[in-house]
């Protein structure tokens, strides 16, 4: 049973609106049957109106679905509740009214024109009132959902940016930069320029849909140069981009996560470090006749976990696991832009290390 809390202020507001409505109905009734007097009409109206409203207002809480935005039960339940409210309200309200104003003579069971009209007015008023409150509530709930979704979207964007900027990487780089300023100012300046380019590319890259391959390679060059300062001779790298591939358009940040993973999971844990090769090749690969673009990130690191290893540990927040956020991101991007035409594989290399390969058919690039 879902716990529900009742917003009493809202309930009071609704009731006051109902009361106003009852006054209006009473006025209409008096206009139709002037002999009964406004006071009496008002009395009946308030009794019936209050009860109809009461049944519907409090009846909807146990009946609504937990995720319902308007707080109203859906479908047949809503109709049934409204109907029940009207019937009960009219029945009990009229009886009470009769006891108070008509000395106990029942008006309910009379099947004359007056009571039929009375019923009709109650039904019409009940439906109108219910609809009025329902649509108000629904609109408010929808507005709340929209602003919640907007908040989620900005939060997600912020998280993406934060993970791309990688505070750990940034502060370690700055630490090294600080040392270089004293030791080797020329090299410090060069490093600062690299960092500048890298940050610009990070902040811009998140938005663009496609960018030329040479821009991606340039960014990788900046990143690897920065990592090289930190890792010393534990990191050796090479970037191979043939001239005919330079202008090809690919989604940004496709290779970046692969290179990061290579370093973080392949080279960093290895005491002597290793080598990374980033390569772009155009050709007919995999026996197909269509030309394709093959992007590879090859490393000589500690390699992938063994095939018979137990399933990977669940990710702790902030912990980067092999095949974590970066790689799913790559797969998602490929799927979004190329559908099933592009392929991404992660394989161990025969001599040790890992090979990450992205295969994109050329007419899409």
């Amino acid at each position, binding site marked *: 049973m879902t716990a529900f809390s009742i917003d009493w202020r809202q309930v009071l507001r609704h009731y006051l609106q109902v009361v106003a409505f009852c006054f209006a109905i009473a006025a209409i009734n008096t206009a139709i049957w002037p002999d009964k007097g406004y006071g009496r009409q008002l009395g009946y109206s308030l009794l019936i109106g209050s009860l109809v409203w009461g049944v519907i207002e409090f009846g909807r809480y146990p009946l609504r679905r937990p995720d319902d935005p308007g707080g109203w039960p859906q479908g047949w339940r809503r109709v049934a509740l409204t109907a029940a409210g009207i019937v009960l309200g009219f029945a009990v309200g009229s009886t009470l009214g009769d006891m108070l104003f008509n000395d106990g003579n029942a008006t309910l069971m009379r099947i004359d024109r007056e009571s039929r009209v009375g019923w009709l007015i109650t039904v019409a008023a009940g439906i109108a009132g219910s609809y009025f409150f329902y649509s108000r509530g629904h609109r408010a709930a929808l507005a709340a959902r929209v602003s919640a979704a907007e908040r989620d979207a900005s939060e997600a964007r912020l998280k993406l940016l934060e993970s791309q900027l990688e*505070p*750990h990487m*940034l*502060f*370690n780089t*700055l*630490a*090294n930069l*600080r*040392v*270089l300023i*004293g*030791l080797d100012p020329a090299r410090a300046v060069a490093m600062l320029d690299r960092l500048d380019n890298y940050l610009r590319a990070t902040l811009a890259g998140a938005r663009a849909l496609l960018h030329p391959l040479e821009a991606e390679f340039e960014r990788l060059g900046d990143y690897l140069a920065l990592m090289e*300062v*930190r*890792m*010393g001779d*534990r990191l050796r790298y090479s970037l191979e981009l043939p001239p005919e591939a330079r202008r090809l358009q690919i989604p940004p940040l496709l290779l970046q996560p692969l290179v990061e993973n290579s370093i973080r999971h392949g080279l*960093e*844990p*290895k*005491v002597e*470090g290793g080598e990374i090769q980033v390569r772009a090749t155009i050709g007919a690969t995999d026996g197909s006749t269509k030309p394709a673009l093959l992007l590879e990130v090859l490393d000589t690191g500690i390699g992938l*976990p063994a095939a*018979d*290893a*137990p*399933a*990977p*540990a*669940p990710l*702790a*927040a*902030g*912990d980067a696991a092999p095949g974590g956020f970066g790689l799913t991101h790559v797969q998602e991007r490929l799927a979004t832009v190329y559908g099933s035409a592009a392929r991404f594989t992660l394989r161990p290399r025969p001599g040790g290390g890992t090979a990450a390969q992205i295969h994109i058919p050329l007419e899409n690039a």
Partner: protein
Amino acid sequence: MNATALIAEDEPLLAQALRMELQAAWPDLQVLATVADGHSAVREALARLPQVLFLDIRMPGLDGLGAAMELADRWPVDEAPMPQLVFVTAYDEYAVRAFEAQAIDYVRKPVQPERLRKTIARVQQALGNQAVQQASPAHTPTPGADASLEHMLAQWRRVIDAAGATGGAQAAAPGSPPLKFIAASDAGGQTVRMVPVADVLYFEAADKYVRVLTATQEHLIRTPLKQLLPQLDPQAFWQVHRAVVVRSDAIEVVQRDESGRLFLRLRGRPEKLTVSRLYAHLFKAM
């Protein structure tokens, strides 16, 4: 004052910077060796017995934490007092918070002279106290050595716990209930067994996996111990060694062997599990 130190830092520029800053702030400190990974740190520290250790937390192979825990057990306490332990940390808000909460000194990357001076002052004072203790006429080898060893072990424990908070702090949401089940997949990865934590007698870290042992079975999981530990009820499970976490109420007996090493046996399992010096304090007779 004269003293010797070992630096373990994998980023060559930062190691150089630390050496230079130490040279400026503490000229009489002799850096015996600079290494770039945890195993080398252990090896060199045991070979040269420095008085101060500057350990980077993140290093390839064995990290700073692992190196410290291994050294705690392998340090020849009869030959030399345990060194002062100072961790070196980069941007890591959890670590910094943990260190500050314990009022433990740490050295931050990039090294800032002001902070380093404070750390050096503390280290010098501690070394001074140690020297006084050993030189005092009232000092008798066994009880005095034990007391100062206990003190050092307690200090190391605090520093290691604070440094360990880097990974652990993020693993469990504060106030979340302890883990009830361990999900362990079998070798083929096709089945996942839900092992009730209530059945687990101990966890042992082995290479890349952690062994989960009940009275009758053994399972393997990949969650590292430091990530698992914060999710377990600290009253029910005790860490007794870098690689071992045992169910406290399953401990049958704790014994010392001929070489003075502490080990324990659990009810329902035949193995003898080594207890690290760092955690021997849990088993002091009442």
